[in-house]
């Protein structure tokens, strides 16, 4: 016979009364587990798709001249710019504190050239990073393999009446059209893309870059943070975050997270209230019994131990049941709220969280009833009933 035997027997032989608390707390915990699970699934979903949304940071040289903007691309002083970015700046981006969040760095050199008596913008790019950045590109033909090959936009193809594997003259040099972009609906349609190194030599701008597009793969760290870190590394450049659809989605996500947090808090408060009323009623019901325990020589501490142990056992069960129920519902409900690809693992961290919250709620709500029980005047308690 120990104190815990008293608690266990009390719970076991009065289970209908405690069922209310158990169910209330289980529902509360499962709701929280559902919300957290769904949030997580949605976040994971977004993170997975993040790099499909292209660049979200644009780096251009700081310039006193007015910016030339075209279709969202800002091009500073196309002519001569002493402060132009260069190849070293590209390396520097990879040295910021959040460098593991930098997914793609795509430098570009913008120049203007005459092709068949028409002025066209020629962009020197690193084809590997460019195609990684622009996953939506559909290239008819192939990605250029050497510096004499180029990709042209669909508009260039039309206006200049060019075809695959034909050649064009740029600055007196001959390039073969290795690929043609299917219409993208962006500025890319009107551009000719050649290798960055080739462009630098062709236009006599060795090692210089007009702009750098960066894709930062970070769905929860603030993009502003990365922007600030990059600015620090590149004092001569202007670093800006580009608002894109992903941001709207992330904003929705964050709003959902805040909403979940609020709902969870409310639910837990309700759970705590249920635990509080049930335990208070239980203490009231057991006044006489508590008087007996006290007259027998139990200390106040022993009375609290009995009551806390009951709360602990109930909360523990509720935490476990709530976790399982929440997991089950989340797995079935997550697709309904827009998380398309998802796997919700049975993870121990979440289980511990559910248990922790349940114990915190259940045991926390029992503090007052337990203290009240311990402080009961034993003679008054014995008189009750």
């Amino acid at each position: 016979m120990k104190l815990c035997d008293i608690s266990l027997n009390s719970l076991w032989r009065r289970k209908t009364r405690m069922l209310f608390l158990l169910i209330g707390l289980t529902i509360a915990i499962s709701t929280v587990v559902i919300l957290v699970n769904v949030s997580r699934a949605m976040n994971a979903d977004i993170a997975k798709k993040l790099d499909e949304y292209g660049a979200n940071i644009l780096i251009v040289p700081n310039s006193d001249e007015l910016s030339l903007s075209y279709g969202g691309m800002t091009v500073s002083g196309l002519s001569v710019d002493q402060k132009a970015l260069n190849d070293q700046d590209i390396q520097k981006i990879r040295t910021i504190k959040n460098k593991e969040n930098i997914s793609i760095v795509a430098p570009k050199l913008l120049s203007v050239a005459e092709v068949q008596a028409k002025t066209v913008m020629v962009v020197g790019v690193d084809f590997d990073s460019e195609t990684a950045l622009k996953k939506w590109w559909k290239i008819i033909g192939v990605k250029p393999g050497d510096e004499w090959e180029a990709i042209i936009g669909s508009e260039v193809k039309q206006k200049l009446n060019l075809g695959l594997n034909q050649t064009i003259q740029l600055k007196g040099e001959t390039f073969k059209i290795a690929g043609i972009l299917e219409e993208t609906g962006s500025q890319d349609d009107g551009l000719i893309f050649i290798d960055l190194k080739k462009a630098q030599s062709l236009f006599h701008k060795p090692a210089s870059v007009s702009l750098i597009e960066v894709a930062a793969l970070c769905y929860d760290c603030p993009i502003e943070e990365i922007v600030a870190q990059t600015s620090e590394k590149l004092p001569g450049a202007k670093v800006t975050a580009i608002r894109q659809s992903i941001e709207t989605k992330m904003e929705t996500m964050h709003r959902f997270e805040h909403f979940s947090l609020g709902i969870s808090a409310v639910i837990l408060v309700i759970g705590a209230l249920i635990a509080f009323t049930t335990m208070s009623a239980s203490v009231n019901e057991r006044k006489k019994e508590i008087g007996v325990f006290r007259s027998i020589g139990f200390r106040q501490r022993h009375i609290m131990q009995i009551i806390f142990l009951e709360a602990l056992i109930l909360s523990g069960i509720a935490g476990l049941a709530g976790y399982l129920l929440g997991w089950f519902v989340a797995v079935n409900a997550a697709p309904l709220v827009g998380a398309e690809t998802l796997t919700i693992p049975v993870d121990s961290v979440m289980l511990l969280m559910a248990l922790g919250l349940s114990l915190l709620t259940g045991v926390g709500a029992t503090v007052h009833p337990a203290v009240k029980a311990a402080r009961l005047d034993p003679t008054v308690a014995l008189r009750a009933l």
Partner: protein
Amino acid sequence: MNLIYVENLIKEYHSGEESVAAVDNISFSIDLGEFVAVVGPSGSGKSTLLTVLGGLTHPTGGQVVIDEIDVYALTAEQRADFRKEYIGFVFQSFHLIPYLNVLENVMIPLAVVDAPGAEKTEIALGLLEKVSLADKARRLPDELSGGEQERVAIARALVNNPPIILADEPTGNLDSTTSHSIMALFRHLNEEGQSIVMVTHNPENLTYAGRFITLRDGKIAQNSEALKQPLIERIPINN
């Protein structure tokens, strides 16, 4: 040597403006091994006196010294330990814990004692044997008769082997036959050396005691000399 020594004990209850002295400045002492009956009309302060003796109710004034311990000089938690060590309470309405079986009820006081479980069970079973309930050890209280419940309560009061048993009308809820068997049990315990203070309404019960204290309006109206021989042994009661 006095086991219980009470001096100028006062216990007042306050309700609103009025204050009632349930125990009004009384002094007496009880020796080790005595069986004292406390009698008196309803409202005379018997129960109040008993709870004060048992360390449950802080008196308004005066002293309760048990085994040379000034009970109310102790802190509340020390007094709990004191009760565990010195006092076994038996109540009129038994006050068994409904969700514990007979054996567990008897063992409750041992729940805060450090000892192996088997040892505790052995002690409790021994006491159930003594009160002739060993065969009903696994029953719940509400499956027992009133007399059986009272015997469980007595076994529970004895389980810590306390020097003093305080009983408040232990036969108040029982028919006369059962009352006599319970009183015989108390008598038997007293003969084994157990000190007992018992509040009772029933004059018949007096015959089992070795001495009686009569209260009236919180004061001692009569404090009988200790009898050499309990009345019961001189005036046999047929039952």
